[in-house]
């Protein structure tokens, strides 16, 4: 266990398409450079909505990530991005806004905004305004770039959103000009007062939900996106699955559970039995509440989640890969949620094969454990930018 707490940059976003559109005209993209050392995120809002807007914002966000990750000069890069966008046949302009957030390991952060609502920085439960510098590319004088430099401190959050969020409720009797950045900031403030350690994901979803609640008929009349960057002490999760190859290592394996002070999941009946036996902890298995084709979860003192193995892991991998949460809660939904709420996930995979799983008369295919765990690890790393360690025992 590390004595010094590791810092982690959690980036998540929540998004809703313009009502009736099948794609989102906003784009939120992130990339991690040099392991966990640097994180770049971009929010872009394309002109209009639907496919055309989606192309504009995706091009902008993709180019911005590329330019930032190669440390290109920003004013020149902005000009290239604006010149590269296709011109709208109706409006005769090419246009997509952007906000770029570039955070380094020490917390040194640069934010570049063009025409998006200004970001919100929350520090110690309060909103903090940061001064900016203004620049423009030659020939694009009206497209002002706002450039901010700041040092993120542990527990700071940056919240960015498209105008679909800040203009929520516009034209309704109570909010003639919409909810605006002020209204949004109030909701964030309230949310964090009640839950100071709210994850980036939960906060982004909360802001989106609150914005939508202010819309007439709760319909999105513009694409709505909220992104949150949360600089915080890493939340650790430990997932143990499979019996150790050599039974002599059972005790060592179980001890990992006893030593862990983060979230813990045990996935596998035999695995749970081994750990229960070695640590002298009782396991209670319900016969109810499985759902979605999975066995129910069990209970063990000091462990948040005890599930069946292969079937649950396979469904968890599908949930994470497709980013769609089944309506009914079951063991896989709970595991996927736990993993997404964590920053640093350590998988320890026991590699002893259960021969009964190889029986060709089984009515379903049972995947090899380490392959499924690899799928989950890949999704967590690539899709959710988590730090993942994978060990075999």
């Amino acid at each position, binding site marked *: 266990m590390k004595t010094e707490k590791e810092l982690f940059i959690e980036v998540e976003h929540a998004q809703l398409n313009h009502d009736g559109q099948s794609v989102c005209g906003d784009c939120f993209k992130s990339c991690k450079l040099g392991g966990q050392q640097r994180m770049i995120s971009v929010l872009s809002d394309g002109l209009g909505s639907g496919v055309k807007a989606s192309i504009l914002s995706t091009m902008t966000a993709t180019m911005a990530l590329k330019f930032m990750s190669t440390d290109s000069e920003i004013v020149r890069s902005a000009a290239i991005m604006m010149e590269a966008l296709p011109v709208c046949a109706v409006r005769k302009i090419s246009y997509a806004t952007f906000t770029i957030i570039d955070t380094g390991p020490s917390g040194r952060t640069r934010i570049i905004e063009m025409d998006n609502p200004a970001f919100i920085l929350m520090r110690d439960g309060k909103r903090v305004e940061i001064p900016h510098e203004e620049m423009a590319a030659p020939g694009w004088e009206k497209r002002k770039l706002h450039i901010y430099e700041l040092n993120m401190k542990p527990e700071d959050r940056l919240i960015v959103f498209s105008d679909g969020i800040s203009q929520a409720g516009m034209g309704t009797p109570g909010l003639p000009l919409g909810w605006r950045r002020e209204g949004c900031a109030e909701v964030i403030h309230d949310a964090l007062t009640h839950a100071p350690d709210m994850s980036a994901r939960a906060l982004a979803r909360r802001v989106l939900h609150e914005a939508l609640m202010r819309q007439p008929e709760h319909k999105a009349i513009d694409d709505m996106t909220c992104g949150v960057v949360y600089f915080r002490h890493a939340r650790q999760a430990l997932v143990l699955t499979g019996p150790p190859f050599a039974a002599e290592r059972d005790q060592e394996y179980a001890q990992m559970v006893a030593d862990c002070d983060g979230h813990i999941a045990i996935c596998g009946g035999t695995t749970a039995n081994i750990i229960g036996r070695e640590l002298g902890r009782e*396991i209670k*298995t319900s016969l*109810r509440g499985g759902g979605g084709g999975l066995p129910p979860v*069990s209970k063990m003192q000091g462990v948040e989640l005890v599930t*069946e193995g292969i079937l649950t892991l396979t469904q968890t991998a599908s949930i994470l890969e497709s980013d769609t949460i089944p309506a009914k809660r079951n063991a896989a939904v709970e595991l996927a949620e736990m993993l997404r709420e964590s920053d640093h996930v350590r998988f320890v995979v026991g590699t002893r094969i259960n021969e009964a*799983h190889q029986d060709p008369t*089984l009515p379903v295919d049972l995947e090899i454990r380490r392959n499924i765990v690899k799928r989950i690890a890949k999704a967590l790393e690539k899709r959710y930018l988590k730090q993942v360690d994978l060990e075999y025992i």
Partner: protein
Amino acid sequence: MEKVQVRICMGTTCFVMGAAQYEGIEEELPEDVQSCVEILGSPCLNLCKDQNFGKAPFVMMNGKPLAGLNRSDLIGLIIRTARGLEE
């Protein structure tokens, strides 16, 4: 009188081989039987590892392994055991 102990395996093999159908069997037992039976799940009864005990799904009743029962057979067996008609 000691309760009849029923342990139902919820491990992967048993689950795919039909243990899912045992959900809620308790409610189907007559009242006199319900009071003298304890039905619990188990993460894994460890009976599928070799071929000695027959085919999954497995149930342990009063320490005796039972293999491949369907829902109604299991219910019938619990009732008979609880009423002392079966060893």
